């Protein structure tokens, strides 16, 4: 069999989603962002919502998310993405509106906007990348940094006396009346990626069906911030992050019983 015979549309098993362009990503090799971007692009296309989607990008590593996915975007100020999304969805009720935020953006400076948008039951989806560190600014402590974890601003490890405790935002969100679907996922393996994609689809469908607000936390790695190889970072995440940030659905008001 020749190479040309193999490269046929009928033999296609994988391709880059159409909504992902060829712009070179600024993410570090091994970063989880690229995978989650891909899943978002796939789900939007599979739902046929390309020309009725408004994405809201954050401040943090995903600040340039708008460069990589060919949909319409609004780039928010640090932490304010859920406020932008609230207005977009209320003004364009038949549109798919989502935010894409990191732990500092969502869990620290934008906690008020996040909690209130979720609690109002805005028909939006918040995709929350939790890698327990500020990646863009060079590896400082995040609200989700684990106890004892070393960062540039807690070089001797996170100490509750000095820094307080890592924030379980997703658990908080599950307590809010306005949320329809609250889940914690990861993307370190093929199985995890498939589950995460299902979660994104479920959340996007909820927001289109007026079921309320949706939060998908993706426990992620920041191998450069953590100063580990990508493989080691994945292993470290499984061994340390999952103990504190348990993977799975925390709330699903639309679950089939």
């Amino acid at each position, binding site marked *: 069999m020749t190479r040309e015979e193999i490269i046929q549309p009928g033999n296609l098993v994988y391709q880059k989603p159409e909504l992902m362009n060829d712009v070179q990503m600024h993410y570090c090799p091994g970063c989880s962002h690229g995978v989650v971007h891909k899943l978002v692009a796939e789900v939007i296309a599979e739902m046929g919502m390309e020309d009725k989607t408004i994405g809201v990008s954050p401040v943090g590593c995903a600040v340039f998310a708008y460069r990589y996915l060919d949909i319409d975007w*609004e780039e928010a100020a640090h932490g304010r993405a859920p406020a932008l999304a609230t207005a977009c969805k209320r003004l364009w009720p038949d549109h798919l509106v989502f935010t894409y935020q990191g732990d500092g953006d969502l869990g620290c400076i934008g906690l008020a906007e996040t909690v209130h948008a979720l609690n109002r039951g805005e028909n939006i989806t918040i995709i929350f990348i939790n890698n327990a560190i500020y990646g863009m600014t060079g590896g400082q402590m995040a609200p989700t940094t684990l106890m004892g974890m070393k960062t540039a601003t807690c070089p001797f490890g996170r100490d509750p006396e000095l820094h307080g405790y890592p924030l379980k935002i997703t658990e908080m969100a599950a307590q809010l009346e306005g949320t329809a679907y609250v889940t914690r996922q990861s993307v370190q393996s093929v199985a995890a990626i498939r589950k995460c994609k299902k979660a994104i689809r479920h959340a996007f469908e909820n927001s289109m069906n007026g079921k309320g607000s949706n939060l998908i936390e993706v426990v992620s790695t920041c191998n450069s911030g953590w100063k580990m190889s990508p493989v080691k970072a994945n292993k470290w995440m499984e061994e340390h992050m999952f103990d504190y940030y348990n993977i799975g659905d925390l709330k699903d008001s639309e679950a089939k019983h």
Partner: protein
Amino acid sequence: MAEEKEILLMKGNEAIAHAAIRCGCDGYFGYPITPQSEVLETLALLKPWETTGMVVLQAESEVASINMLYGGGGSGKRVMTSSSSPGVALMQEGIAYMAGAEVPGLIVNVQRGGPGLGTIQPSQSDYNQATRGGGNGDYHVIVLAPNSVQEMADFVDLGFELAFRYRNPAMILSDGVIGQMMEKVILPPLKPRRTNEQIYEECPWAANGHGLKKRGPNVITSLELESAAMEKRNLHLQKKYAECEEKEVRFEEQYCEDADYIIVAFGSASRISQKAMDNMREQGLKVGLFRPITLWPFPSKELKRLSEKVKGMLVVEINAGMMVFDVQAAVEYSIPVQHFGRLGGIVPDPDEIVQAMEKLRKVAK
């Protein structure tokens, strides 16, 4: 809904709410603060979401309100907020983002005294913040200063028109006097909200997904890491501001033709100054009143022209002296320009203005 041309009696804040519904506003996002809470309260009572389809939302903070404006305006919708001084201070970050990303939107500031929590009584001490661009970076907000309940109603539509014409935030800089006082008003004619098709045509830049398959993505952002590109973007903004300064200056003159002295005042200070002027005219003193309606762009050329035939100008503001520097610069320090104002929420008395004019006349001959 009021009949066409019907004369109504209402507060300035209420007029803002009625006018918003009548001029096709798509969404209002706000947070309660004295002395402007009647705007949100009136909208809540009028329930425009059942008539015109206008969205009304009480946000969790002024920070959230202005970012809702950024989001909604960035998608091409006519959106507005209102607040008072401390709340507008909180909004400055969002306003800078809107200016940087060229997002239209309307902000109403019913000013109260500061600094800090200050007082709930009227003031005009946000003049510098409003006219200089109170956030970070080189930008301007188009600032309209109403001096009556009628203008509160009229400037909502004008504010939206200017905001969309220049893709820039516009502000109605009012104060506690104009917001709280009741006056006769004829509400603007009912104008339907634009259809989505009209929005697509008017705002091809907006992020709402429309026509995505036939064009590249629309991205609303103020971010540009490359210096050369960022300078280019800034020069584009400056060019737009220059055009705005050329075309959008608005002002009102009263008895300026034969005047020896001119009072320069905006908003509620202009109403009090009008009384002071009338009193001085009765005593035979030729005093005129010049009222900037746009505080940015500022009517500098018109003041310069007037300075060539008057002996002095008295700038009356309810602050410690802010617009006075713009007037001095406008007349190029060619004639005496003095300031009179009261602080802390105290509104000046016409007699005090007459006394201030007597002081000016001693140095300006």
